[in-house]
């Protein structure tokens, strides 16, 4: 009862102090980072080629185009939505550019702009329908996914009488396109696809958007608690539509990369990829419920995908088993992420 005790108040119990370890555990990309290291060590131990420069170039390649998409899809997922049409949109973009230039003689740059405008419009429609109807984006984009899949195939066949668009390398300005989308950079005797560079740029851009801009805060608010967001003036509808359009832009970029690189595009291009994007984002720590995740995590998820898909080949295994490993990894990653998050949240009390 002395006067000295009055100031001797303990720490405020309303605030749990969060240590460095726990803060680290709460980073969405932690699980994926550990997974990436493990996968690398595993395959590097099995195969010399896997850890050589050309090996690295080889598995970074599939990771790169996937990674660009995964970053966009991760932003969308943090915003609380899915885009099942993201995969076929890459096909739509490439087929549109290809048909316009090779069959209709449209100026290359105009054709690219038209295909960009087209997929952005698709993204807008996806977002607009989701916002206006309040239906799950899963259903809305399942619809656009199927429609686009049919359109891609139907129109390609109608115009070309085949199931692919060829001769993209004969168009005017292909050199420039090749330099931007498909050139290779030689490092240590191995040639690396320029897409890897764009992947890094996309990751940095995505992280910057998410963590350093107010649009990023809006994404978290839109996915985490849209009502709270709306009440404090976050333009939830605009944010949602923008996220779908960002995904569409990424699809256009990746689709263009494909057609420039291959000089042709299959009518079925991109089909089935939409789930792989989501897999990468989820391995990277995105919650299916929105409001939590990271762009870097999605990139690392893509990296794991690339390493596994090529690592299996280098290890001399039958590549047919790849999907099995991918599925197992997805489950493991989700369980690990959930466990880590719960542990970190519980120990916070």
């Amino acid at each position, binding site marked *: 009862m002395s006067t000295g*005790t009055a100031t*001797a*108040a*303990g*720490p*405020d*119990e*309303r*605030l*749990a102090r*969060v240590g460095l370890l726990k803060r680290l555990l*709460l980073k969405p990309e932690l699980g994926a980072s550990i997974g990436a290291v493990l996968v690398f060590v595993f395959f590097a131990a099995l195969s010399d080629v896997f850890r050589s420069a050309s090996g690295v170039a080889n598995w970074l390649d599939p990771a790169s185009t996937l990674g660009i998409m995964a970053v966009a899809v991760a932003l969308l997922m943090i915003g609380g939505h899915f885009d099942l049409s993201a995969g076929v949109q890459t096909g739509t973009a490439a087929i549109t550019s290809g048909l316009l230039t090779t069959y209709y003689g449209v100026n290359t740059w105009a054709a690219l702009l038209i295909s960009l405008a087209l997929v952005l419009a698709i993204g807008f429609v996806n977002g607009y329908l989701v916002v206006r109807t309040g239906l799950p984006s899963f259903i809305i984009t399942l619809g656009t996914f199927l429609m686009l899949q049919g359109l891609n195939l139907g129109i390609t066949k109608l115009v070309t009488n085949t199931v692919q668009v060829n001769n993209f390398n004969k168009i005017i300005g292909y050199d420039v396109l090749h330099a931007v989308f498909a050139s290779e950079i030689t490092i240590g005797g191995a040639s690396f696809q320029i897409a890897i560079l764009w992947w890094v740029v996309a990751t940095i851009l995505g992280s910057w958007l998410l963590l*350093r*801009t*107010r649009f*990023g*805060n*809006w994404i*978290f*608010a839109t996915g*985490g*608690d849209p*009502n*709270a*967001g*709306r*009440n*404090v*003036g*976050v333009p939830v509808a605009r944010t949602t539509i923008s996220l779908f359009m960002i995904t569409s832009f990424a699809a256009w970029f990746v689709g263009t990369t494909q057609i420039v690189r291959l000089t042709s595009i299959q009518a079925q291009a991109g089909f089935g990829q939409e789930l792989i994007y989501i897999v990468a984002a989820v391995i990277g720590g995105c919650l299916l419920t929105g*409001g*939590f995740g990271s762009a870097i995590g999605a990139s690392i998820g893509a990296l794991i995908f690339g390493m596994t898909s090529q690592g299996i080949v280098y290890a001399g295994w039958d590549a047919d088993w790849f999907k099995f490993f991918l599925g197992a990894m997805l489950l493991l990653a989700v369980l690990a992420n959930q466990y880590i998050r719960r542990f970190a*949240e519980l120990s*916070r*009390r």
Partner: protein
Amino acid sequence: MTGAEQGGGDMTADNDHEVVLRLTDLVKTFPGVRALDGVQLEVRAGEVHCLLGQNGAGKSTLIKVLSGVHRPDSGTVEWLGQPVSFSNPQAAMKAGIATIYQELDLVDDLSVAENVFLGHEPRRLGFVRRGAMAERTRGILGSLGHEEIPARRMVHALQAAGKQVVSMARALSQEARLLIMDEPSAVLAHDEVENLFRIIRRLTARGIAVIYISHRLEEIREIGDRVTVLKDGRTTAANLSAAQTPTSELVSRMTGRTIEYVFPPRPDEPPAREELLRVRDLSRAGEFRDVSLSVAAGEIVGIAGLVGSGRSELLETIYGARRPDTGTVELAGKALRPGSVGSAVRAGMGMAPEERKSQALLLGEPIYRNMTLATFTGLARLGFTNARRERAESDRIAGSLDLRPLDVRRPVGTLSGGNQQKVVVGRWLLGDTRLLLLDEPTRGVDVGARAELYRVIRRLAAEGVGVLLVSSEVPEVLGLSDRVLVMREGRVVHQAPSTELDEDTVLDLVMAGSLMEGAPA
């Protein structure tokens, strides 16, 4: 001022403060309901104006009109001397009216500073100025007396009280001149309410007006300056003195009849009551330890304790929703399978959880479906449900509970809080429930509906049902229970017949731990 009376009280002291908000004859109708039917309200700068009324009196609608969610059909809203009409929440916020809802509108995975400035982030060249944002957040938190909350901490790392402070900081970041607080104390433990009041006093000292909504009269007396009472969407009394108006008058303005905040009388104790529930040495790490208790048939046992004392966790463990580390639960001499709700329900246990909206009700489903949920199997024939029989059974219960509106086909989500709670309790009346567990049965329930709930609970006991109830309101535990257990930090620290206890004693026991903490004995 028609229909509303000018109260006496210490009005003269407030007269030098300008009127910031004046509502005249505000009307708002929804299909089938006249939610606001002529509301008058006058709020002055720097006062705490309390809004009192039963659930369904129109308080929520009024808040939503003021915060720009709804637009009134007729009547005027005068804000700072100008007639205004807010088309959306942002417009109201820009004008200086901030609302802190019961469900705090915060985004868990953003930091404190990001939440405070969400929607109006300071920017430069596309970048959020994080430094400036954190700095200003620190300044605002400091002005609220809470500089200890780190501006960059993720909001989900804060407890409810901390989150509430962040909500208030957000209001201040937008230079709010009127703060509407909807039952702010509902999420707080007893000692945290004092802190809330300290913050409110700081705000009013700066000339900010506060509209304070609460069901707890003692809070209104402590923090309020003036009181406006709503009933059926109408102002029945305006500008009463919060400190001096007698409780009976406030209650009669709310109800239209003079009812006391009364508990049904306890029956004379029967000579021997059969023991119903027996809990032995129940423990769960970090939640509660070595809890033993018993409830007899027809007995009401109340557990008093603060939020975080382990009382809700204990109840959920007895019910089987959590699995105990050690200890046993027996109902009528039969041991229950630990961690199995099914086993508990089959043995005759029923539970009305604290979060009735998220844990106990299907808000979109009709009342009868919600009532029959627990006894589905009993009402189903060959795997088919019989909607007619469900409705008939529910009708009977609804009538005996005085449910309003008395139409069991309505979705539960359209009922007021008190009536929703009746549905949750009523559900167990349908089956052969022998022991009812009630977690904060009157949370968010108005005075009138409370008295009805108390009567229902007492009647159940008279029929031989054992009741184990948890409440953070000491008068409720004392008034309703036959026997009281006091829990603190996961342990039962005292138990006695409620007639041998008084409010001060229990409050002392309940809070002793938290008050002493950090100070040497």
